[in-house]
């Protein structure tokens, strides 16, 4: 948030938010201390991380990927690091342990 924030007299009654989708501006990545890193070679594209992510910050992208063993996938799972809070559910649920939680270093 930048600039002057509205006073109590200027805000809508009852903490109602009048602008749809305004939460997009709330980048929750600052909450994170560990970030998930997906090993694209290990990933079997099962979609479990995508369905478990509460944010959702796991993106299913139409981007082909060829593994080191020459297996071709039509999609790639990627992390939306703007909104990922670092909860680690994806890493916990991944059946092939393809997601590692790596400390954030700034």
């Amino acid at each position, binding site marked *: 948030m930048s600039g002057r924030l509205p006073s109590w007299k200027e*805000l809508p*009654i009852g903490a109602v938010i009048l602008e749809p989708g305004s939460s997009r501006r709330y980048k929750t990545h600052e909450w994170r201390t560990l970030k998930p890193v997906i090993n694209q070679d290990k990933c079997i594209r099962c979609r479990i991380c995508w369905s478990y992510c509460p944010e959702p910050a796991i993106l299913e992208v139409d981007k082909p990927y060829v593994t080191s063993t020459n297996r071709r996938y039509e999609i790639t799972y990627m992390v939306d690091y703007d909104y990922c809070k670092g909860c680690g559910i994806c890493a916990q649920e991944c059946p092939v342990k393809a997601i590692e939680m790596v400390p954030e270093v700034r």
Partner: protein
Amino acid sequence: MGKIVPLSGNSAVAYAVKSADVDVISAYPITPQTTIVEKLAEFIANGELDAEMIHVESEHSALSAAVGASAAGARVYTASSSQGIVLMYEIMFIASSLRLPIVMTVATRALSAPINIWNDHSDFMAVSDTGWVMMMAENNQEAHDDVILAYRIAEDPEVLLPVATALDGYFMTHTIEPIEVIEREDALSFAPKRKTWFTLDPDKPVTIGALGDPQWYFEFKRQQYEAMKKSREVFEKSVEEFAKVFGRRYGAVEYFGDENPEVVLVAMGHVVGNIKAYLSRVRGKDSRAGVLKIKLYRPFPEDLIAKYLEGVKIVGVIDRALIPGSASPGPLHSEVVATLRKHGVDAKTLSFVSGLGGRPVTHEHIGLMFGKLSELKDKPSSELPKEPLFIGVRE
């Protein structure tokens, strides 16, 4: 004007809710509130009231459903007592902070333990910190009228707060009095249904109940404070208008007794009527005594209370609830003491705790209290008891 019919306090309330043409009723039965909602169910079944009755599994759900319905733009009603009221506690704060104009009746009853279904103000006092506008009636007519007043105040665009109206369990809820019923047409012209608050509408989407982090939360509490302050002005305008239309005049506080009193009892609810009767019949008109009834409990009408108690030697406050460990274990006494101090009124005060768990506050008890006040009225403050006087308990 409406016709006069004999009604119990609960029926009187139900008739007012019907006349207010509510859209949604969400409630869970509990003694002594039950017959309010039973009567409303009957009205719906008979086709006399077109409203949705939501059957819920608890009072927590009753008020939660009321919050949802109000957010959707409905005129909403609920009622409860005692344990039901305190089970709603969590949602009461949400209703007032979301600024939803829900009206709820508290049929006042003691809190467990021991289990007690009879009347005192423990449940009403539990509402007092939740940000609701609060009124308490002295008789069934007032309990009826309060519901109509409540919708007018709650839905005023300058207020938008939930309102709790109260009547004493059994002493009023199950006691029959002649009531002038306000008809629907008159109720709706006095308290017209209009959407003055933000509601859920797919064509104009809003988010209600979002997170308010430290950057935002404080501002909404400040707003809420202002709304409660405003509700006092709206209350005054509403009772004024009510008197013009319906011929019955109510005040945030109402005084009865000697014009220049030395001793005054402050009380709420049906007991006020008892004190008036005592003053008229037992004590006689020449005594310098009076009773100050508090009708509006939130916002606490401190300016008027200070005005009425200026020049009074000693004030006795009757509490029908007990908060052990508080600076004054009588919550109403606490409010009165703070009021006097804040407004520089130097009347002495005495705290009376009486009538807990349905024990009647009799003329004998009232006589005892006035006697105590007269006995202490010329003593210095330092000689007054620091503890509340428990009137009517077995020592």
